[in-house]
Protein backbone atom coordinates (compact mmCIF):
# COMPACT_ATOMS: atom_id res chain seq x y z
CA UNK A 1 0.00 0.00 0.00
CA UNK A 2 1.26 3.44 -0.91
CA UNK A 3 2.12 5.48 2.14
CA UNK A 4 0.20 8.72 2.27
CA UNK A 5 2.39 11.76 2.84
CA UNK A 6 0.62 15.04 3.27
CA UNK A 7 3.56 17.08 2.01
CA UNK A 8 3.89 14.97 -1.14
CA UNK A 9 0.27 15.48 -2.06
CA UNK A 10 -1.10 18.54 -3.79
CA UNK A 11 -2.62 20.85 -1.24
CA UNK A 12 -5.99 19.50 -0.16
CA UNK A 13 -8.53 22.28 0.13
CA UNK A 14 -11.22 22.14 2.77
CA UNK A 15 -13.89 22.16 0.06
CA UNK A 16 -16.20 24.38 2.06
CA UNK A 17 -18.29 26.84 0.09
CA UNK A 18 -20.76 29.50 1.05
CA UNK A 19 -24.06 30.43 -0.61
CA UNK A 20 -23.73 33.13 -3.29
CA UNK A 21 -23.65 36.66 -1.91
CA UNK A 22 -23.49 35.28 1.64
CA UNK A 23 -20.91 37.83 2.74
CA UNK A 24 -22.70 40.70 1.01
CA UNK A 25 -25.67 40.37 3.31
CA UNK A 26 -23.90 39.04 6.37
CA UNK A 27 -22.96 42.33 8.01
CA UNK A 28 -26.52 43.56 7.62
CA UNK A 29 -27.74 40.44 9.43
CA UNK A 30 -25.36 41.00 12.34
CA UNK A 31 -26.22 44.69 12.67
CA UNK A 32 -29.90 43.81 12.70
CA UNK A 33 -29.26 41.25 15.41
CA UNK A 34 -27.38 43.82 17.44
CA UNK A 35 -30.33 46.22 17.19
CA UNK A 36 -32.69 43.52 18.43
CA UNK A 37 -30.32 42.58 21.24
CA UNK A 38 -29.99 46.18 22.34
CA UNK A 39 -33.73 46.27 22.90
CA UNK A 40 -33.91 42.90 24.58
CA UNK A 41 -30.70 42.81 26.54
CA UNK A 42 -31.07 43.40 30.26
CA UNK A 43 -27.75 44.72 31.52
CA UNK A 44 -26.12 42.48 34.04
CA UNK A 45 -26.41 44.96 36.90
CA UNK A 46 -30.15 45.25 36.27
CA UNK A 47 -30.53 41.51 36.11
CA UNK A 48 -28.65 41.38 39.39
CA UNK A 49 -31.06 43.89 40.84
CA UNK A 50 -34.03 41.83 39.71
CA UNK A 51 -32.50 38.69 41.18
CA UNK A 52 -31.84 40.38 44.53
CA UNK A 53 -35.35 41.81 44.61
CA UNK A 54 -36.79 38.39 43.85
CA UNK A 55 -34.63 36.86 46.57
CA UNK A 56 -35.73 39.51 49.08
CA UNK A 57 -39.37 38.93 48.21
CA UNK A 58 -38.91 35.19 48.60
CA UNK A 59 -37.27 35.61 52.01
CA UNK A 60 -40.02 37.94 53.25
CA UNK A 61 -42.62 35.53 51.98
CA UNK A 62 -40.89 32.63 53.73
CA UNK A 63 -40.70 34.60 56.98
CA UNK A 64 -44.40 35.42 56.75
CA UNK A 65 -45.44 31.78 56.52
CA UNK A 66 -45.23 30.97 60.29
CA UNK A 67 -46.89 34.29 61.17
CA UNK A 68 -49.74 33.74 58.78
CA UNK A 69 -50.08 30.17 60.01
CA UNK A 70 -50.22 31.34 63.61
CA UNK A 71 -52.78 33.97 62.77
CA UNK A 72 -54.89 31.44 60.98
CA UNK A 73 -54.58 29.04 63.92
CA UNK A 74 -55.73 31.79 66.29
CA UNK A 75 -58.70 32.66 64.21
CA UNK A 76 -59.64 29.02 64.20
CA UNK A 77 -59.92 28.99 67.97
CA UNK A 78 -63.48 28.86 69.16
CA UNK A 79 -64.73 31.89 70.93
CA UNK A 80 -66.77 31.66 74.12
CA UNK A 81 -70.12 32.34 72.48
CA UNK A 82 -69.65 29.48 70.07
CA UNK A 83 -68.82 27.10 72.88
CA UNK A 84 -71.81 28.26 74.85
CA UNK A 85 -74.10 27.80 71.89
CA UNK A 86 -72.72 24.39 71.23
CA UNK A 87 -73.15 23.29 74.78
CA UNK A 88 -76.68 24.69 74.92
CA UNK A 89 -78.01 23.27 71.73
CA UNK A 90 -75.88 20.39 70.59
CA UNK A 91 -74.52 18.56 73.59
CA UNK A 92 -76.03 16.04 75.89
CA UNK A 93 -74.84 17.90 78.94
CA UNK A 94 -77.84 19.03 80.90
CA UNK A 95 -78.08 22.10 83.02
CA UNK A 96 -77.75 19.88 86.09
CA UNK A 97 -74.55 18.34 84.85
CA UNK A 98 -73.16 21.81 84.33
CA UNK A 99 -74.21 22.93 87.80
CA UNK A 100 -72.52 19.88 89.28
CA UNK A 101 -69.19 21.02 87.84
CA UNK A 102 -69.36 24.47 89.36
CA UNK A 103 -67.45 25.08 92.56
CA UNK A 104 -67.90 27.88 95.09
CA UNK A 105 -65.74 30.39 93.32
CA UNK A 106 -67.64 29.81 90.06
CA UNK A 107 -70.91 30.43 91.81
CA UNK A 108 -69.59 33.57 93.40
CA UNK A 109 -68.46 34.75 89.99
CA UNK A 110 -71.83 33.99 88.55
CA UNK A 111 -73.36 36.01 91.39
CA UNK A 112 -71.23 38.95 90.37
CA UNK A 113 -72.07 38.57 86.70
CA UNK A 114 -75.78 38.27 87.24
CA UNK A 115 -76.54 41.13 89.57
CA UNK A 116 -80.23 41.21 89.84
CA UNK A 117 -82.15 43.75 91.76
CA UNK A 118 -84.40 42.29 94.43
CA UNK A 119 -87.43 43.70 92.64
CA UNK A 120 -86.54 42.10 89.38
CA UNK A 121 -86.02 38.84 91.17
CA UNK A 122 -89.43 39.11 92.79
CA UNK A 123 -91.02 39.89 89.43
CA UNK A 124 -89.47 36.84 87.91
CA UNK A 125 -90.51 34.64 90.75
CA UNK A 126 -94.07 35.98 90.65
CA UNK A 127 -94.39 35.60 86.91
CA UNK A 128 -92.84 32.17 86.89
CA UNK A 129 -95.42 29.43 86.80
CA UNK A 130 -93.04 26.96 88.37
CA UNK A 131 -92.45 28.94 91.48
CA UNK A 132 -94.21 26.51 93.70
CA UNK A 133 -92.39 23.62 92.28
CA UNK A 134 -89.06 25.43 92.82
CA UNK A 135 -89.92 26.26 96.40
CA UNK A 136 -90.88 22.69 97.16
CA UNK A 137 -87.65 21.50 95.56
CA UNK A 138 -85.67 23.87 97.75
CA UNK A 139 -87.26 22.32 100.74
Amino acid at each position, binding site marked *: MKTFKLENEPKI*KSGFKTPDNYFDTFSEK*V*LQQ*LDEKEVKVIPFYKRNKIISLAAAAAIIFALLIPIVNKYRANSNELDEATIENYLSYHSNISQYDLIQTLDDSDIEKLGNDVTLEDETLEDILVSSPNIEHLISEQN
Partner: protein
Amino acid sequence: MIDEKEFIKQLLSPETQNTAFQKLLSDYQRPLYSHIRNIVLNHDDADDVLQNTFVKVFQNLKNFKGESKLFSWMYRIATNEALTFLSQKAKLSGISSEDLQNKTIDNLKADIYFDGDEIQIKLQKAIVTLPEKQQLVFKMKYFEELKYEEIADILGTSVGALKASYHHAVKKIELYVTSN
Protein backbone atom coordinates in the same frame (compact mmCIF):
# COMPACT_ATOMS: atom_id res chain seq x y z
CA MET B 1 -4.01 50.53 7.59
CA ILE B 2 -4.91 52.57 10.60
CA ASP B 3 -3.32 51.95 13.92
CA GLU B 4 -5.11 49.23 15.89
CA LYS B 5 -5.43 51.35 19.02
CA GLU B 6 -7.01 54.13 16.99
CA PHE B 7 -9.39 51.61 15.40
CA ILE B 8 -10.46 50.28 18.80
CA LYS B 9 -11.07 53.85 19.92
CA GLN B 10 -13.33 54.33 16.92
CA LEU B 11 -15.15 51.11 17.76
CA LEU B 12 -15.83 52.35 21.27
CA SER B 13 -16.84 55.91 20.46
CA PRO B 14 -20.59 56.25 19.75
CA GLU B 15 -20.05 58.63 16.79
CA THR B 16 -17.67 56.37 14.87
CA GLN B 17 -18.84 53.03 16.20
CA ASN B 18 -21.13 52.07 13.32
CA THR B 19 -18.64 52.74 10.56
CA ALA B 20 -15.84 51.09 12.48
CA PHE B 21 -17.90 48.00 13.21
CA GLN B 22 -18.87 47.73 9.54
CA LYS B 23 -15.18 47.76 8.71
CA LEU B 24 -14.47 45.15 11.34
CA LEU B 25 -17.18 42.97 9.84
CA SER B 26 -15.96 43.31 6.28
CA ASP B 27 -12.32 42.70 7.26
CA TYR B 28 -12.92 39.69 9.42
CA GLN B 29 -16.09 37.95 8.25
CA ARG B 30 -14.32 35.77 5.68
CA PRO B 31 -11.34 34.56 7.73
CA LEU B 32 -13.51 34.02 10.80
CA TYR B 33 -16.10 32.19 8.73
CA SER B 34 -13.43 29.80 7.42
CA HIS B 35 -12.11 29.28 10.91
CA ILE B 36 -15.54 28.49 12.33
CA ARG B 37 -16.62 26.41 9.33
CA ASN B 38 -13.51 24.27 9.71
CA ILE B 39 -14.57 23.49 13.26
CA VAL B 40 -18.33 23.05 12.92
CA LEU B 41 -18.17 21.77 9.30
CA ASN B 42 -21.63 22.68 8.06
CA HIS B 43 -22.64 26.05 6.65
CA ASP B 44 -25.80 26.72 8.65
CA ASP B 45 -24.02 26.08 11.93
CA ALA B 46 -21.06 28.21 10.83
CA ASP B 47 -23.47 31.02 9.96
CA ASP B 48 -25.06 30.86 13.44
CA VAL B 49 -21.72 30.75 15.22
CA LEU B 50 -20.26 33.57 13.12
CA GLN B 51 -23.20 35.82 13.95
CA ASN B 52 -22.89 35.00 17.65
CA THR B 53 -19.18 35.67 17.45
CA PHE B 54 -19.65 39.18 16.07
CA VAL B 55 -22.40 39.92 18.57
CA LYS B 56 -20.05 38.82 21.38
CA VAL B 57 -17.21 40.84 19.92
CA PHE B 58 -19.41 43.91 19.81
CA GLN B 59 -20.72 43.42 23.33
CA ASN B 60 -17.26 42.80 24.79
CA LEU B 61 -15.32 45.47 22.94
CA LYS B 62 -15.37 47.71 26.00
CA ASN B 63 -13.64 44.97 27.97
CA PHE B 64 -10.96 44.47 25.33
CA LYS B 65 -7.76 45.43 27.07
CA GLY B 66 -5.52 45.49 24.02
CA GLU B 67 -3.18 42.99 25.66
CA SER B 68 -3.37 40.82 22.57
CA LYS B 69 -4.11 41.80 19.01
CA LEU B 70 -7.70 42.39 18.00
CA PHE B 71 -7.23 39.66 15.42
CA SER B 72 -6.21 37.05 18.01
CA TRP B 73 -8.89 38.16 20.43
CA MET B 74 -11.61 37.74 17.80
CA TYR B 75 -10.25 34.36 16.70
CA ARG B 76 -10.27 33.28 20.33
CA ILE B 77 -13.92 34.26 20.71
CA ALA B 78 -14.79 32.48 17.45
CA THR B 79 -12.95 29.33 18.57
CA ASN B 80 -14.69 29.28 21.93
CA GLU B 81 -18.09 29.90 20.35
CA ALA B 82 -17.57 27.13 17.80
CA LEU B 83 -16.35 24.59 20.38
CA THR B 84 -19.18 25.46 22.78
CA PHE B 85 -21.66 25.15 19.94
CA LEU B 86 -20.32 21.70 19.03
CA SER B 87 -20.44 20.37 22.56
CA GLN B 88 -23.96 21.72 23.09
CA LYS B 89 -25.14 20.19 19.83
CA ALA B 90 -23.61 16.85 20.78
CA LYS B 91 -25.21 17.04 24.22
CA LEU B 92 -28.62 17.80 22.72
CA SER B 93 -28.31 14.87 20.33
CA GLY B 94 -27.13 12.65 23.17
CA ILE B 95 -23.95 11.58 21.35
CA SER B 96 -20.25 12.25 21.78
CA SER B 97 -18.61 15.17 20.02
CA GLU B 98 -16.60 12.74 17.87
CA ASP B 99 -19.74 10.86 16.77
CA LEU B 100 -21.43 14.13 15.96
CA GLN B 101 -18.51 15.25 13.81
CA ASN B 102 -18.43 11.89 12.01
CA LYS B 103 -22.13 12.19 11.31
CA THR B 104 -21.65 15.72 9.99
CA ILE B 105 -18.82 14.53 7.73
CA ASP B 106 -21.05 11.77 6.33
CA ASN B 107 -23.66 14.40 5.59
CA LEU B 108 -21.09 16.58 3.80
CA LYS B 109 -21.34 14.41 0.69
CA ALA B 110 -24.89 15.63 0.22
CA ASP B 111 -24.14 19.19 1.30
CA ILE B 112 -24.56 21.69 -1.51
CA TYR B 113 -22.05 23.95 0.18
CA PHE B 114 -19.33 21.33 0.13
CA ASP B 115 -17.27 20.82 -2.95
CA GLY B 116 -14.99 17.95 -2.16
CA ASP B 117 -14.21 14.41 -3.15
CA GLU B 118 -13.14 11.24 -1.36
CA ILE B 119 -9.76 12.54 -0.23
CA GLN B 120 -11.33 15.58 1.43
CA ILE B 121 -13.84 13.42 3.28
CA LYS B 122 -11.09 11.02 4.31
CA LEU B 123 -8.94 13.89 5.56
CA GLN B 124 -11.84 15.22 7.63
CA LYS B 125 -12.43 11.74 9.06
CA ALA B 126 -8.76 11.51 9.94
CA ILE B 127 -8.86 14.90 11.69
CA VAL B 128 -11.77 13.80 13.87
CA THR B 129 -9.61 11.04 15.36
CA LEU B 130 -7.22 13.67 16.77
CA PRO B 131 -7.46 15.26 20.21
CA GLU B 132 -9.30 18.62 20.14
CA LYS B 133 -6.19 20.78 20.44
CA GLN B 134 -4.39 18.95 17.62
CA GLN B 135 -7.49 19.27 15.45
CA LEU B 136 -7.50 23.02 15.98
CA VAL B 137 -3.78 23.39 15.32
CA PHE B 138 -3.96 21.28 12.18
CA LYS B 139 -6.94 23.12 10.74
CA MET B 140 -5.48 26.53 11.50
CA LYS B 141 -2.10 25.66 10.02
CA TYR B 142 -3.08 23.48 7.08
CA PHE B 143 -6.40 24.91 5.86
CA GLU B 144 -6.29 28.49 7.13
CA GLU B 145 -2.54 28.83 6.66
CA LEU B 146 -2.07 30.91 9.78
CA LYS B 147 1.45 31.49 11.08
CA TYR B 148 2.62 29.61 14.17
CA GLU B 149 3.00 32.95 15.97
CA GLU B 150 -0.60 33.85 15.21
CA ILE B 151 -1.91 30.45 16.32
CA ALA B 152 0.18 30.68 19.49
CA ASP B 153 -1.36 34.04 20.30
CA ILE B 154 -4.89 32.76 19.64
CA LEU B 155 -4.58 29.51 21.57
CA GLY B 156 -2.30 30.85 24.26
CA THR B 157 0.46 28.27 23.75
CA SER B 158 4.09 28.42 22.77
CA VAL B 159 5.24 28.12 19.17
CA GLY B 160 7.35 25.11 20.13
CA ALA B 161 4.38 23.25 21.56
CA LEU B 162 2.34 24.08 18.48
CA LYS B 163 4.99 22.77 16.12
CA ALA B 164 5.09 19.51 18.06
CA SER B 165 1.29 19.36 18.06
CA TYR B 166 1.12 19.92 14.30
CA HIS B 167 3.80 17.33 13.68
CA HIS B 168 1.89 14.72 15.72
CA ALA B 169 -1.33 15.61 13.96
CA VAL B 170 0.21 15.19 10.50
CA LYS B 171 1.71 11.81 11.45
CA LYS B 172 -1.62 10.51 12.76
CA ILE B 173 -3.51 11.77 9.73
CA GLU B 174 -1.02 10.16 7.33
CA LEU B 175 -1.31 6.90 9.21
CA TYR B 176 -5.11 7.05 9.13
CA VAL B 177 -5.34 7.87 5.43
CA THR B 178 -2.79 5.16 4.52
CA SER B 179 -4.64 2.44 6.43
CA ASN B 180 -8.18 3.42 5.47
